[in-house]
């Protein structure tokens, strides 16, 4: 009797359906005295046995930083600042790069749910809000900014974009080969210190089908770190030391010049 040969063990598929994966060239940015911004390249690949049309969105979100913004108003012929409005929940750095304009990739509600794109950042100004009952409806959140809210919000984004801290790039994710893509993350010198959450989302037919998260750490290093910690942990001693340096160097210069 010849027993039929057993079929070879099937290769276990890792996950059914398409997946995305990505890696950063540099996950740790060291801010030293030579720091003049950084460029990080993100490489990734889309694994899809059926090769359906894919879109990739890369979102980088820096540490949250409350934003204080004021409006210039004219008072008695002089341009002065209004009382500042504090926006909370806004990141200190934000970048949305995609292979196509976001609005073509997914619907408004999907993007809103994922917080993908500058327009979907959950920014608000809690100090301007109060909860009241309106038209018999209880617990309605009313902002003192009223209809101007959008204008203030747009101004925050405009000013942050001008400082290269917010960016939207509709062609930021480029497919370099079949399934292989890359995106560049430009951190300006003013990029805040902290953890940057990077999210890579694969879209197919307007739905997110696979997500990956990576973290970039931006930290002060070397002398910069030491001085920063000194200034913040022992501020009074730091102040005394800096004054001593100033007075000593003034005194030294006058001694040196007297001898000449």
């Amino acid at each position: 009797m010849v027993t039929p040969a057993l079929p070879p063990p099937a290769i276990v598929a890792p996950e059914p359906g398409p997946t995305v994966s990505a890696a950063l060239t540099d996950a740790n940015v060291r801010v030293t005295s030579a720091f003049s911004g950084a460029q990080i390249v993100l490489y990734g690949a889309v694994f899809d046995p059926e090769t359906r049309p894919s879109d990739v969105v890369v979102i980088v979100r820096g540490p949250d930083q409350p934003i204080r913004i004021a409006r210039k108003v004219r008072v008695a012929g002089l341009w002065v600042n209004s009382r500042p409005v504090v926006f909370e929940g806004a990141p200190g750095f934000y970048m949305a790069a995609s292979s196509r304009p976001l609005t073509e990739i997914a619907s408004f509600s999907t993007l809103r749910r994922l917080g993908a794109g500058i327009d979907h950042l959950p920014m608000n100004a809690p100090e301007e809000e109060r909860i009241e009952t309106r038209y018999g409806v209880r617990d309605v959140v009313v902002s003192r900014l009223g209809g101007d809210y959008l204008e203030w919000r747009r101004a925050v984004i405009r000013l942050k974009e001008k400082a290269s801290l917010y960016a939207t790039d509709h062609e930021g994710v480029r497919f370099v080969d079949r399934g292989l893509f890359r995106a560049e993350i430009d951190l300006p010198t003013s990029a805040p210190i902290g953890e940057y959450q990077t999210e890579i989302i694969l879209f197919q037919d307007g739905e997110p089908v696979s997500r990956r998260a990576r973290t970039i750490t931006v930290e002060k290093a070397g002398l910069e770190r030491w001085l920063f910690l000194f200034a913040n942990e022992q501020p009074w001693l730091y102040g005394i030391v800096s004054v001593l340096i100033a007075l000593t160097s003034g005194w030294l210069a006058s001694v040196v010049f007297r001898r000449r």
Partner: protein
Amino acid sequence: MDIYLPIAEVSVNAGILVLLGAVVGFISGLFGIGGGFLMTPILLWMGIPPVVAVASEANHVAASSASSVISYSRKRQVDFRMGGVLAAGGAVGALLGVEVFRWLRLMGQADLVVSLSYLIFLGLIGGLMLVESVGSVLRQRRGQPPAKRRDRRPVWLYGLPFKVRFPRSRLYISVIPPVILGIFVGILSAIMGVGGGFILVPAMVYILRMPAGVVVGTSLFQIIITTSLASILQAGRNQSVDIVLATLLLLGGVLGAQFGARASSRFRAEELRALLGLIVLIMGLQMGLVLFITPEDPFILVGSGK
């Protein structure tokens, strides 16, 4: 060479900072002033956050004043007692000023107050100095005798209580006017990032009627004490002194101050005053200009939530 400043958190060219320090130090030594009113606006234009610029500049002014005060004191041109009284007022003023600045920053009005203070004080004093010194230069050219100085001291200076003798200045006056003057200059030094020499010097000449010989040295002595204190307070309360920025500035600053002090003997006092008046006036108008120009963007970010 670009260098990233640890507290200001911006990248600037180190060579330019040293050179700037030297130029401002030269002017400071030439005129016997701290030079803060020149340096602080330049730092702001370079993109240094206002809080850091003001605090670090106080440190730089302390250094360049220390560099030149020693040579004045060798020539017995410092009235230490008067300087001490002014500095006592200055200490109170600096304490108040640091708190006022902190509050203004929270209200988003720091920029406005800084611009307004520059416009008002520099504009006024620069204008007065220019008019007065150009007048006396013209009189000299025409061969007319210099205008008579009204040597009668105002009565209120003598009527006030707490009189103290100031032998070096040959004065016997109440301590109240110098203390008030000191407080005022201390507040300005914390808000504007200046030593306040441009206000102290004329005030000592025209209000306290001190002899011209001791005015500059005494003003520098008081500036050292006030700015050192302002610097420590800014570091302690606001963590806003950038030691790298201050050190780069004072590298050039202390040397420039020495050369400036030497060059000052080559010019006549009136011509120097006219030139200083012009520089002060231009600086004041330049800083105040922003209040009148329609802004490009009606919105402005007023510092992070730090």
